[in-house]
């Protein structure tokens, strides 16, 4: 997983799964990278092949964090299978899903 800042955006890339196994660790790493300057958290899902309910929990947890900061979370380029799960769970109401 790679976390980098681009302006007011924290961009998370290069991860293939977001699950119970390692999801909490990933969440904590991202939180630690957030600063007051970050108004947007971009989760690049282009390489994510698998996302379970624990991964969803991580995303919602980060969403809460960003909301508290007055920011937001965007989900970028999810693969069809992942996008299907996001839709199934009506998460489009929560996240901006970019270029699925």
């Amino acid at each position, binding site marked *: 997983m790679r976390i980098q800042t681009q302006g007011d955006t924290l961009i998370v890339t290069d991860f293939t799964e977001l*699950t*119970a*196994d390692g999801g909490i660790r990933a969440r904590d790493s991202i939180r630690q990278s957030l600063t007051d300057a970050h108004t947007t958290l971009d989760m690049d899902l282009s390489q994510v092949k698998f996302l379970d309910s*624990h991964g969803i*929990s991580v995303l*919602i947890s980060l969403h809460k964090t960003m909301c508290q900061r007055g920011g937001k979370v965007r989900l970028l380029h999810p693969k069809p*299978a992942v996008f299907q799960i996001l839709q*199934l*769970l009506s*998460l489009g109401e929560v996240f901006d899903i970019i270029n699925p």
Partner: protein
Amino acid sequence: MVTPQINLVGTRFLSLTFACDLRESREVSRCVRQFLAEAQLPESDLHAWELMVTEAANNAADYATEAGRGLPNRLEVFCRDDEVEIRLTDHTAGFEMPERALLPPVDREKGRGLFLIQSLASGVEYLRGRKENCMVIRRQRPVLTVSALSATASTVAMERRLLEDEQTLQAMTEELASCYESLSAVFRFSSALNRFQQTEEFAATWMRELLMIVEADWYLLQVADPEGRELHVAVTSLPADPDYVLSLSPAPPAAESVELRAARTRQDVWFDAASPLLPGDPLFPFIQHSNGLAHPIFAEESLIGVLSVGRLSTDASFKAGQVNVIQTFADFLGVQISNARFRTEHLKAQLMTRELEIASSLQRSLLPERLPQMPGLEVAGYYQSARLVGGDFYDAIATNGHGLLLVMADVMGKGVPAAMVATIFRSHLHARPDLVERPGEFLTWLNHSLFPDLDRMEMFITAQLVFVDAAARRIRVAGAGHCPLLMATTGSTPVEVGNTGFPLGIMRDAVFSEEVSDLRPATRLLLFTDGVTDTANSNREHFGLDRLKERWRLIADRRQNASQAVQDLASVLQTFQGKEPATDDQTFLVLVNE
């Protein structure tokens, strides 16, 4: 991390156990995905199952009781044609499975697992037990799209066609193999046909080879006699060496014999568990439990025999290719037997012809090239051999100007043996010029000398010796079982002279007497063999002694010389005989005393 125990019982069933650990839960879902991927599930299904297993396993790990946390969870996957079923046994306190789980509020982090499972599955059950619970998740395998169905249908069709092609190919291979065996057999047979071999020996050799080629246990070859009346066992591999005879007569008793049925119907007759040999079948005592066939062998419409071949079991029947080989062997064996018979007959005919040629040549060599002539005495002879050369013989031996000995003989027998005896007789005849003037004594001596040979050969000779005393104009006649001579004088009826005595070779010590007659002027003697009087016409009438006498009277009345008399009589005989072939030699000797 504890590696899950994966027990692959088959490609359609997977069973594994894993610890209550989220990492292991993920590992388990990967295993299930791989397992289902091998079962050709589409990617969407693989992802759904991967997610459902993960969620279920996570729940089992997340909510395991204190006691259950140390116990392994168990997962079983049943991959059927129409659906996949997964059973996950957990050690949690269990929960009430809602008919339809609801999504939690969007900002709530947990509580989506069951929703995901129910959403992705066709059906979910949660079976609660005292110590463990079991979640059963089923999902229909996707209904194939039209194109997929079409592809599957064409795949099935192609597989069926491939299978058919394979079967065809196998049949062709088998056929080809049998054809090869047949062709190979044909060549070897053809080669063997050129070597002289007894039929039985030939058949036994090739039948042994046949048994090996078609993996048969026994054979029995019945061969019909040349007249087609019976079938006889020629050769067989059956240890009991059966030797029964089957009658081929048109109205036999009920044909319980498979061999007879094959011979009569001209078709193969099969015997196996469904149609076993009948107890009345002569073959039955030798091979009760067997399967095979009886194949009739024909050569140009003639029944040559019947070949029966079988295995000592009522199943494991011959394949088509093997039957082909059996039929090929049998048919070629038929050609061999037929040829052998033809060869034998041809050889016999050749031998007979050659023997007749030898006999005829020998016979003619015995006859004098030129008969002695004396003043006032004219001699002429006639010899016409029959198809089956007899042992007729004539001669005339001059004696120092005093006279001559006329000899007429007939060896009883045909062919070379008769000609040989005639040769011996002639040599004996010329060995004793001192006896020429005493024909009775001469015959006595000849009989005594020839008796051992004649007796051993079971032959005999009829003979007539006539010494013509030129000076005294008298004849001395001695006969050994021979027909009497005819003596005719112009203007009178011919008389028979000298018909006494046994043939030579009948009685060792026989003594032959003489009959003396004056030889008056204008007298004609006719010495002949019974072939003359036995000459037959198309009505089976014999020329007979009476016709001969009448003709001889005419010849005498006409005062024909010897040559004329011979020609006259020969002509009369030929006219009487017509186109009928002579059954015996026609031989006669004429003496004319003018």
